[in-house]
């Protein structure tokens, strides 16, 4: 787009990926499960926006399809499934946490620093307008991973897993302007199936232990 300088384009993409990171922190700070799901939907919306912006600035058409799929799968379908699960199981709040919220936020801050520190040597080599998003993508992956460890309810862990996936998608968009379309379609399908399976698994957990607390799984140890 000749009427827009590349510098400004980079700024806009960076802004929308920063919004992704912000929603991550919001998820970490949130106790209510349905709010977590909403935040995830919001994050996915920002992701779709970032992807659409990249597609718009670079003219890579197939990223539009990926963005549209993101909206359909991650903003509409998966949140609905999760909401259904939460309603059926009647779990509203994450009560027990391994690490409390202030400490979690501090650790997440540290993880963002680590992510930027790690990508520091790589970023100058890139010529893409999305190159700064790579650090953010890595930070989101790490935060998602950390959330999986620090939360006990299976639903929260599932959301954290999906957040990680968002981070990976952002990373792929940032590093190479998206994966080939066929790969992206496969990934979307995978995520959908994974979310469904995890929903079923959560139901099973509830049936078996009367709770979706994954620490009960320790009892399965020999």
């Amino acid at each position, binding site marked *: 787009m000749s009427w827009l300088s590349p510098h400004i384009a980079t700024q806009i993409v960076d802004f929308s990926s920063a919004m992704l990171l912000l929603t991550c922190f919001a998820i970490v700070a949130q106790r209510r499960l349905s709010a977590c799901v909403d935040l995830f939907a919001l994050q996915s919306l920002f992701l779709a926006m970032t992807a659409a912006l990249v597609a718009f600035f670079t003219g890579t058409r197939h990223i539009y399809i990926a963005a549209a799929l993101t909206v359909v799968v991650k903003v509409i379908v998966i949140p609905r499934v999760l909401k259904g699960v939460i309603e059926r199981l009647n779990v509203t709040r994450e009560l027990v946490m391994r690490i409390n919220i202030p400490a979690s936020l501090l650790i997440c801050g540290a993880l963002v620093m680590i992510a930027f520190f790690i990508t520091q040597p790589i970023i100058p080599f890139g010529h893409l307008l999305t190159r700064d998003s790579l650090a953010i993508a890595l930070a989101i992956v790490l935060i998602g*991973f950390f959330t999986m460890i620090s939360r006990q309810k299976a639903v929260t862990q599932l959301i954290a897993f999906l957040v990680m996936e968002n981070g990976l998608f952002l990373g792929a968009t940032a590093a190479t302007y998206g994966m080939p379309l066929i790969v992206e379609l496969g990934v979307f399908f995978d995520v959908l199936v994974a979310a469904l399976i995890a929903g079923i698994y959560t139901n099973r957990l509830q049936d078996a232990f009367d709770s979706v607390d994954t620490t009960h799984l320790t009892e399965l140890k020999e």
Partner: protein
Amino acid sequence: MAILLFLTLVGYAAGLLLPLCVPARPKVQNILAHGLAGVAAVGGCCLGITGLLAAKPFEMSVPSTLPLLTFAIRLDPLASFFLLTISLVSLAASIYALGYVTKFYGRVSMSLLGSLFNGFLLSMTLVVIADNGFFFLIVWELMSLISYFLVVTEHEKSDVRYAGLFYLIMTHVGTAFILLTFLLLFQESGSFSFDAFRQPEQSLPDGMKTMVFLTALIGFGTKAGFVPLHVWLPYAHPAAPSHISALMSGVMIKTAIYALVRVCFDFFGGYFPWWWGFVVLAIGAVSAVLGVMYALMEHDLKSLLAYHSVENIGIILLGIGAGMIFHSYGFEELAALGLIAGLYHTINHAIFKALLFFGAGSLLYATHTRNMEEYGGLLRRMPWTGACFLIGAVSIAALPPTNGFISEWLVFQSLFLSYEIPSLFMKLMLPIAAAMLALTGVLALTCFAKAFGISFLALPRSSHAKHAEEVPWPMRIGMGFLAAGCVALGLAPMLAVPIMDRVTASMIGASISEKMLALGGWALTPVNVEFSSISSPVLGLVLAATAAFGLALVALHGGTRAYRYGKTWACGLNVTPRMEYSATGFVQPIKRVFSTIYQPTVKLETDFLEESRYFAKRRRFEFHIEPVFQKYLYDSVVTFMSGLAHRLRIVQAGSLHLYLAYMFVTLVMLLLLAL
């Protein structure tokens, strides 16, 4: 030669695949599998003989897509000799199995058993002719795995499963060391082909050479089963079906001997320090004595034979060790003598041990028990088996005119010729080894006097033995074939020695067969005519003449006399099997003499009548000997490992979060380290 090779390999491969393809009719599968194995084994025999007579080694190579791996085959005299040994026993085993496996009909899948049997023979054949380290390791591992599956044929019994697991662990520890050997050699030569290993320009540093030797000794030693790596033999050999035990004990453990000779004399070209030979000699002497001593205490016929494998591997190592010592001091002719003695005993042991295992298998087939105390009086009921077993027993006890005698005599000669070595230490050590070999010989004779006497003579000790019947013809033919081999190799060393001389000449360079065969081949003189010589054909004739004379005397005098049957004088009692010498009783004096080694524990419980302590109501006698190596060496390792594992178990908390945290920490650490 390529045609023979093709016939052999395709024969085994067909035997491996076809039984799995035909419908589930045990009889058809049996004939198909063992028939094909027999044809392939004949091909293997011809191939071995051609390879031994050929002017230069036959080589063939098929490249593969994997780097460093080529399916290279090389038939030099050493490989051909072991190929011949393996194929001879395989042929006998194929014939024997035709009859023996009928006892598994309906219990064990015949297609699987026959197919694995062929696979086992194929892998053993390939092990000795492989000419690439990578290829060798693959077929070696195949051989180990297939033999494991064969050991656990009767996996419904828990002791069979235990034996199989024990064997599997031991053989994998061994393979780890063998892998190390090849990797060390690879590091120096940059290739896995045996050709690169034996290049003289890649002279390894001395420390590295020693490492290669020691890893090879441990790695192949676990397969050969010398002390203290022998512990799996008495478990695994009895557990396997008898024709498999014969192959494992008779030939499979020989592949390790092959590999040791290959490493020392081929890869290192015979350039090694004297103490390598001394280590081999010492291990051989200890294995020979301890093997036979533990064998004496066994009343399970197949365990007894398994321990005798330890003993005979020891004797083979005595010959090879003596050869290595002579070689390092530059006495090439004596070195050749030592090696010939070792190789001669290798083929002899393969034949008579397989024969004895066949015999044990026949007894098991007829009586359904391996416990010698339940045999007795079987010679009358199973004359063929008895005769063949007797020939095997005479051979393993090294009595003339059978093959065991000739090879042990050669080992003795090579040990006695140590007076030529300049080192005083060696002058002392080799005769001590000879003395230990003499002790071994005596104990082996005792052991087989017991094994044959208790099993075949006197009265039956159980109803099993009383109702035993002679085994089917294929089994008799298989045993007869090997029994003939025992006698032939004993009476005709002048035919066998030149063949083995070709093997040693190809490695050491000294050809001594002309010196060894005096009087046109009728007498055997180890290098030095003045020192000693022997003529086994004449010895055989003298023995035959003596026997004929004895029989003639009986015919002349005893034959005319009328027999009178009456009760044996036994204080007025009838003679019952309970009055016979038992196997335990037979070896009691030896148990007493060597109690330091056996560390026996005896428990005697007596319940007396209440009225008087002079009358016992019931007596219970228990007796155990301590498996010293297993207790002190292996059990301590096992205790240590399981203690370690127990401590490491805290890592496995079962918590999902903890596992995720492991991954997370690893990921972050790796990312930070990658900078």
